[in-house]
């Protein structure tokens, strides 16, 4: 009896509005990139190869946010062609830094950047992929962390759905023994409400976390809850003396369009109105 020959799983990498940094993390896997290339058929990855093969794919990694009318059709087709769809990075999972335009008037934005706004085709919003199609797993971070990417790819190859820690950065920061920049230096650190995964880069560099891994999920015996960003905002106001605008700018950055960071500006302003 001859052994059963299994085809290699087919992997595709797609890009929407983004800086390319998360795809670059795939090319930066070094030796592991060659191992990945042996384990899977990299069927579609324009940044790495001129050979662009049509679907269907076993897994699609999607970078970037949905921000033009054409994107809406493309993402629907990618979903149809892919057994497992995984978003990588802050743009694909939360709209990215460019989602700041969701808070503003995009016509005004276009006029600021381009002399002929009529040439530009853009949606008024930059949104996460999950607002448009079912997403099977989200890998967060701006940029994604390579160790987490390795973890997700290995899990997928093993045929299990990946899981990653979702708790706040503070836990890891304490384990590593960094002095708390919020308590010791009065720096507006977003670590308490930000998802772990970066390796506590900012506090280790003497800098306040700026939330580039998005809002944490906290586990309780009775279930899960999003981190209490409003409470941290309150502390920034009462103890650090930050203005409403300073606090809004702090939360409305890389993951500014994701709840509960998204709601921060509104709440602060309401309080000042009272």
């Amino acid at each position, binding site marked *: 009896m001859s052994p059963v020959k299994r085809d290699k799983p087919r992997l595709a990498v797609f890009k929407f509005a983004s800086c390319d940094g998360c795809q670059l993390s795939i090319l930066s896997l070094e030796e592991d990139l060659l191992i990945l290339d042996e384990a899977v058929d990299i069927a579609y990855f324009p940044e790495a190869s001129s050979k662009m093969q049509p679907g269907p794919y076993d897994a699609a990694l999607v970078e970037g946010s949905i*921000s033009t009318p054409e994107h809406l059709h493309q993402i629907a087709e990618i979903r149809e062609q892919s057994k497992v769809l995984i978003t990588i990075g802050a743009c694909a999972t939360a709209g990215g830094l460019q989602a700041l335009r969701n808070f503003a008037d995009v016509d005004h934005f276009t006029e600021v950047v381009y002399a002929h706004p009529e040439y530009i085709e853009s949606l008024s919003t930059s949104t996460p992929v999950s607002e448009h199609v079912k997403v099977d797993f989200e890998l967060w971070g701006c940029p994604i962390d390579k160790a987490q990417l390795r973890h997700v790819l290995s899990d997928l190859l093993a045929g299990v759905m990946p899981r990653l820690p979702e708790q706040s950065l503070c836990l890891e920061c304490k384990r590593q023994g960094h002095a708390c920049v919020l308590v010791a230096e009065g720096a507006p650190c977003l670590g308490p409400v930000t998802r772990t995964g970066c390796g506590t880069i900012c506090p280790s560099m003497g800098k306040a976390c700026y939330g580039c891994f998005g809002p944490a999920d906290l586990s309780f015996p009775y279930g899960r809850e999003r981190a209490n960003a409003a409470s941290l905002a309150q502390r920034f106001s009462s103890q650090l003396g930050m203005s409403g605008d300073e606090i809004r700018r702090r939360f409305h950055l890389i993951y500014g369009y994701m709840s509960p960071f998204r709601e921060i500006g509104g709440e602060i302003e309401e309080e000042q109105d009272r």
Partner: protein
Amino acid sequence: MSSRRIRVDMVARVEGEGALDVELYGEDIRDVRLNIFEPPRFFEAFLQGRHFSEVSDIVARICGICPVAYQMSAVHAFEKLFDVAIDPEVRRLRRLLYCGEWLESHALHIYMLQAPDFLGFDSALEISRSAPDVVRRGLRLKKVGDAILKTLGGRAVHPVSVCVGGFTRVPSKQALTALLDDLHWSREAAVETIRWVAGLEFPEFDMDYTFVSLRHADEYPFNEGDVAVSGEAGQATIPVADFEQHFEEEHVAHSNALHCHYHGQSYFVGPLARLNINHDRLHPLAASMLQETGLALPLVNPFHSIVARAIEVLEAVEEAIDIIEGYTPPAQSFADVQPQAGECMAATEAPRGMLYHRYGVDAKGLITEAKIVPPTSQNQTRIEADIRMLLPSVIKRQDEEIAHACERVIRCYDPCISCATHFLKLTVNRN
């Protein structure tokens, strides 16, 4: 007479997304359009109202391949306006950070993005099946660049420690010297890279170019210098502050990137331009390797960019070794900064070419205006002109071959389309 349209819907092995549209009528070239459809992300708009201290983390996100370039042009602009004195050691560390980015970005482009064109493969992964050691050398060079970035900035993509006035934290002498073994390996690997790329077969394609890059009194340019413009008429030098009096951006219908011109002319930025203008500032080993290639300066064939890039890999390695060996940690990692209202500009050399920033700042340190001129929008007009010059020599071939020949030219420029939209899709239109 029939017309035809040749299109490349998605130019591969470039950073970001673009297409090329070529319209032919018989053998007449009707139109060549590099169509950058990478969606606009409106950075200049949402920088308004942000504090100067937030800018380096924001502009880094314009490009995942060259975030350091964006951070550097921004902080240098503010430091000029606020009259901040930068500690000489801090200044050297910034050059070291830039060495890391050049090494990482150039190794990626030489080995992963452009080498497949010369060797007749679709990707570096295909090269690795017949020449695994070559690809491993490229990947390891990239890794060494990443390690420099990580040591100074916490991570390779969007490092976190750059701030106006210096760094949030500077590395210990020990942390830097730990990089030296890898850098000594990289020196040999860079020499092998230069010999390897210099031995590739280059299409004949000499052009009359105007080259633009920074020029510094005694350094190969990373962070600082005047804008040097070198062409048939000789060399002109322009202070960075006067950049916009000589260079103008134009918004055309087919592209989400603005086209930048020098007095209405196209020009060339990047490693080829830098090397032509600054070859006398190279480290001795890099200079002798350039001589060993036997190529005569100035280099006027865009395909020689891969050689210029390899020379710059060696230059970055030599510079990094010098900086690390001479390093004494500064007493303070950053200087105090007091914001002042006004306008400021700076230009630094991103791996793919000069990057200009201008900001307006109010008395509170908030941004009132931002203008960013990335390398790819400067090269875009030049790329289109090159393709027009290339087409007559390939026009009798099949559409697919024409498209491939055009893509090869585009890749010489290492265009970063994410940066330029502020990239690329090829359409050849033959009616």
